């Protein structure tokens, strides 16, 4: 498909197919994802967009009877080759989900530190540093710095989602996948997350799945339109929303179907 312009390629997807049992949900997807840019994936329900991002950090295969073929190159290396540890891939390619899902029994601090502790980091000073930095990057630090010990579940929905972003950032990933990160949030919390996403692209490659086309238009540099498991159109965001090349894209984004 089209190549990402002006910047290097972080992820290159080649002939990706995915199944749930016998049901093929992704059909021969090929696309390059630009480094330190925001790529939005849009499309109607069931078009395969969530499955697609879950293939990018080997999350699809954790579903029973789910299967993937094709190649996903992260910095040129196939994440599906036999000698690759999926756990390492999931550290490098972090994920934020639709509903904020902080670990409910853990404090704010422990939520953010959880990933590092799993990796065996015990150095308190280092943990402190990473927790502070991650919370700052997720624009939550100022709101929680006085109460790092309170439960993560006691935060508001928007704060919880930023906490989950901080948790994802703490393990220093290279790519962040976001699956409908704002769908459970009000417009103010959504605006904060969108601002944050724009900040994140300074350091990270961000891929965001969204039902909200205005959100894709607002935050992303590139947009891919998926329909019935196929990649229909993939372009610079302004191009896609101003003059889409494919009639199906046009019909979808103008609300004529979907």
């Amino acid at each position, binding site marked *: 498909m089209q190549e990402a312009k002006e910047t290097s390629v972080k992820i290159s997807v080649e002939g990706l197919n995915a199944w749930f049992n016998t049901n093929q949900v992704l059909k021969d997807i090929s696309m390059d994802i630009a480094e330190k840019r925001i790529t939005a994936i849009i499309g109607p329900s069931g078009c395969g967009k969530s499955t697609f991002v879950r293939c990018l950090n080997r999350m699809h295969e954790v579903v029973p009877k789910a299967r993937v073929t094709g190649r996903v190159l992260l910095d040129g290396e196939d994440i599906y080759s036999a000698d690759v540890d999926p756990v390492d891939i999931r550290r490098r390619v972090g994920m934020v989900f639709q509903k904020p899902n902080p670990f409910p029994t853990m404090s704010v601090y422990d939520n953010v530190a959880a990933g590092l502790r799993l990796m065996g980091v015990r150095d308190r000073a280092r943990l402190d540093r990473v927790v502070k930095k991650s919370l700052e990057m997720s624009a939550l630090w100022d709101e929680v710095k006085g109460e790092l010990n309170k439960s993560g579940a006691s935060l508001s929905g928007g704060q919880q989602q930023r906490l989950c972003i901080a948790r994802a950032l703490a393990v220093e990933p290279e790519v962040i996948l976001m699956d409908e990160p704002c769908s459970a949030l009000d417009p103010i919390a959504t605006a904060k997350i969108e601002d944050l996403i724009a900040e994140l692209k300074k350091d990270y490659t961000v891929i965001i799945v969204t039902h909200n*086309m*205005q959100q894709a*238009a607002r935050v992303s540099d590139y947009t891919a339109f998926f329909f019935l498991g196929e990649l229909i159109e993939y372009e610079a965001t302004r191009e896609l*929303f*101003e*003059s*889409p090349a494919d009639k199906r*894209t*046009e019909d979808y*984004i*103008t*609300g*004529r*179907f979907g």
Partner: protein
Amino acid sequence: MVRNRFQKEMEELRKDVRKMAEHAKNGVETSVLSLKNQDVEMAESIFAREDESDILNLGIDDRGMKLTALQQPVARDLRFISTMMKVSDNYERVCDLTVKIAEITLKTAKKPLLKPLVDIPRMAQTIIEMIDINTMAIEKWKVDEIGVLNEKDDLIDALYDQVYRELLTFMIKDPRTIDDATHLLFVARYLERIGDIVAKTGARIHYMITGERIWIK
């Protein structure tokens, strides 16, 4: 087909812009005819038309803003709505210029015209054809004829030059004609401006239909 109400509102917008095009066309036709026939009453009808087109243009702008704010149009819808607002504005400017021509009719109606008008009505006729091309392109969502606008605009420019040179000879021969000749020169100048505006409107319509910008002088 979903978003029926939105579709209906866009259709209303299209109809209003069509009316705006009719105002512009009639304005050009009537103002030049009033000048040619030295018909004061006809010239005065232009002023009322101008008021109507002002109100219509405001309404189009308002409807376009409302649709943009409430429906968040993208792709062809966005190009359509923004273009309708722009086309309407352009035709409003055309109507403004036809008022200027009507004012010249009022100034010159008391004594015989300096010369029979030939090229100026041809300019007007060409403009009317250009507006029709724009209207058909919008109605059919096809750009086929838009390319012709360039030729027609060239023709208008050539007619303007011709009128200019002709009037200059009058003024050189007899300075007493300067007042009348200048008035006619202004009319030709206004029509030349209108030709430009209508051609540029066509370029915008081309963008609306194809998503590609083209350059018309």
